[in-house]
């Protein structure tokens, strides 16, 4: 067999541009983690999963890294420690305990029927993590003696890793001449009712793809746009109760992460996403659902324009290259980055909806996969995040929330879907429901 040569990282590896913000802002209520998982009809054996994880790290040696706090920047370095396979706990995408994970930036979890991959965002984004999970499952099935198969759009175990897989495309796309993307005003943030704590409470809504597709098609929207529209409509109803004075209503905006791999044609395994900000201005009056749908569609198309994206990239990368920031010690950078993450991030939008898209399964696995999940850690300002993933004939929308009892957003969202003729099935890890 041909020996596979890896582009093994040596010594100091810089974080990619969009990963820079995650380590300084990491906190109890801002974990910056996410989880992708797959449930199977067969039971999962820990020993086989460990073998599969070993294979994954053999193929993707660039993921064998740990995070360090340097004098000027956070940086990555190769990690020789043994990776650990964890048993699944009671809730997803909590704060990442690096020490308990031997320093790795991703965590492989298992339960009786589930394989999950939880990532700290500095390592990769949702698409990257899905590619890791696909390879992990492929290797698991291989070692479990199941028929060989390959996920479409995943990593090939037998192919030597391309240099591009661990490159930072943001640095390639940076153009000094382009003006920076302008900052926008503050958006509406829900106050919410009752207490909240750091446990991520999940309400998982499973929807039949054909039903939602049909409805979205009637409105000339994609599924992602339709879900964003429902989210905005629900938030508008909540704002209507919370802020009775129309003039005082702040804009409601959503942050929708976009996978730039398709737009710019890069094949990196690091972070390569930017956020489309779509929203409405309720100070101008009440928006009907159709009006929001039009706004969302137009704004999504606009934000996918390469020119706008390059301008955003210019803003982000020029910040990194600014000599004042470059030569400031980490201790000074941390509070600055926290402020920046608020001004250019959380302040500007009222919620996050991350759509991982459709995960195509190999035909051999179709009958074995029971469920796919995607979870995203919420933040202190926006205490609910929506994570969407599609598989087979279903779409799973996971509401990840810090609120202890407040489920009004989830209720508005799901009841809207039900009223719109879409059947919704609900499951949760919240207490006192079973």
């Amino acid at each position, binding site marked *: 067999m041909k020996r596979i040569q890896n582009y093994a990282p040596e010594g100091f590896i810089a974080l990619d541009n969009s990963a820079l913000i995650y380590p300084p802002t990491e906190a109890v209520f801002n974990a910056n983690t996410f989880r992708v998982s797959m449930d199977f009809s067969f039971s999962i054996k820990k020993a086989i999963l460990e073998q599969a994880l070993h294979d994954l790290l053999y193929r993707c040696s660039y993921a064998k890294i740990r995070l360090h706090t340097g004098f000027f920047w956070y940086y990555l370095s190769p990690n020789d420690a043994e990776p650990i396979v964890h048993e*699944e706990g009671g809730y997803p995408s*909590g704060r990442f305990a690096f020490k308990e994970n031997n320093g790795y930036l991703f965590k492989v979890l298992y*339960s009786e029927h589930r394989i999950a991959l939880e990532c700290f965002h500095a390592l990769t984004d949702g698409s990257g993590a899905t590619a890791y999970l696909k390879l992990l499952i492929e290797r698991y099935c291989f070692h479990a003696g199941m028929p060989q198969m390959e996920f479409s759009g995943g990593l090939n175990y037998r192919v030597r890793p391309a240099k591009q897989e661990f490159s930072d495309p943001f640095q390639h796309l940076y153009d000094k001449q382009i003006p920076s993307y302008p900052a926008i005003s503050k958006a509406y943030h829900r106050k919410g009712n009752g207490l909240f*704590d750091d446990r991520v409470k999940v309400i998982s809504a499973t929807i039949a793809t054909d039903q939602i597709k049909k409805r979205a098609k009637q409105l000339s929207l994609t599924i992602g746009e339709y879900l964003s529209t429902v989210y905005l409509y629900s938030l508008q109803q909540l704002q209507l109760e919370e802020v009775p004075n129309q003039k005082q209503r702040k804009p409601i905006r959503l942050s929708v992460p976009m996978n730039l791999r398709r737009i710019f044609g890069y094949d990196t395994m690091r972070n390569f996403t930017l956020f489309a900000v779509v929203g409405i201005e309720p100070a101008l009056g009440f928006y009907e659902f159709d009006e929001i749908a039009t706004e969302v569609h137009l704004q999504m198309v606009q934000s996918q324009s390469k020119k706008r994206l390059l301008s955003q990239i210019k803003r982000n990368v020029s910040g990194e290259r600014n000599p004042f920031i470059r030569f400031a010690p980490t201790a000074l950078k941390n509070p600055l980055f926290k402020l920046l993450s608020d001004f250019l991030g959380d302040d500007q939008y009222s919620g996050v909806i991350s759509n991982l898209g459709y995960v195509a399964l190999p035909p051999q696995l179709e009958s074995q996969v029971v469920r796919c999940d995607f979870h995203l850690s919420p933040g202190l300002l926006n205490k609910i995040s929506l994570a969407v993933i599609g598989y087979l004939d279903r779409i799973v929308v996971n509401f990840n929330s810090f609120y202890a009892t407040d489920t009004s957003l*989830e209720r508005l969202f799901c009841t809207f879907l039900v009223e719109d003729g879409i059947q*919704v*099935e609900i*499951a949760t*890890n919240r207490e006192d429901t*079973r």
Partner: protein
Amino acid sequence: MAYCVRCGVKLSNGTKTCPLCGTEVQLPPGMEETSSDPLFAKELPPEGTHGITKARKGLIELIIALFAVSEITVGLSLFFSDALAYGFIPLFCIAMATVSLVSIVLAKPRYVHHASWQSLIVALLLLGLDGADFVWSWSLIAVGGIVIFWMYGVFPWSRWAKKHVKGGIALSVLSTVFYLALINLVVSGALTWFLPVAVPTLLALLLGTLLFFLWFSNRKGNRIPIADIVLGSMVVLFSSSAVFDGSLARYQTGAISLRWASSLLVTALVILLFMVAASLSLRLRRYFTSHNRHD
């Protein structure tokens, strides 16, 4: 597989209440549902144990270590300078500071909890400082002051007070009465000025507030103009000042007379007259309110 009758969503097997609206799942009599797998392998862990326990533990250990070191250092230095007889106050202060810091780490992160614990600790500290010789004097007044602060600054935000507003107000008023009596008892050794001066003044204040409250709340419309609130408060304050002046004069000289509060009483009467007139006469009200608010 059941449906929520209120939200219309399908619920996973074995669900007792709808996660969205809390409505109980109603199954036909005699029907039992098998329980499906939970969303995650384990139950939701107890609140706040993840991520912060270790930090809390470390902090408490640090505080206790600092406590031990400072107690030993101060104790030894007092011992070697032959001043151990005066050692109670510094050592007690260090101990109470430790308790205060530990309570900051352990108390639930809510204003009511923190403020209550700190008030209690400060009260104990004051009682301890004053009662080193087992005789308590000034600390009783100070502790009473802390209780009053708690009644007006912390208690209204507690769940009980939010639920029982009338009871909360009654308790606050009662605590004020008891505090005044306590001051009288501590300073004079018996109830001297409390009954002839404090009680009539408080009664006047309560009665005035109650009358104005009834008047304002029974008027048409829910909105109470800010001018009415300001003028009403002035009337209540001025007239109860007059009662205070009168009862104080009676307590000191034996004759009921107004000394410095006569002008206040006249002002109160004039304002009251104006308010009654404005309330009765539409024309007067229009003259004093802006052109677009004739209510």
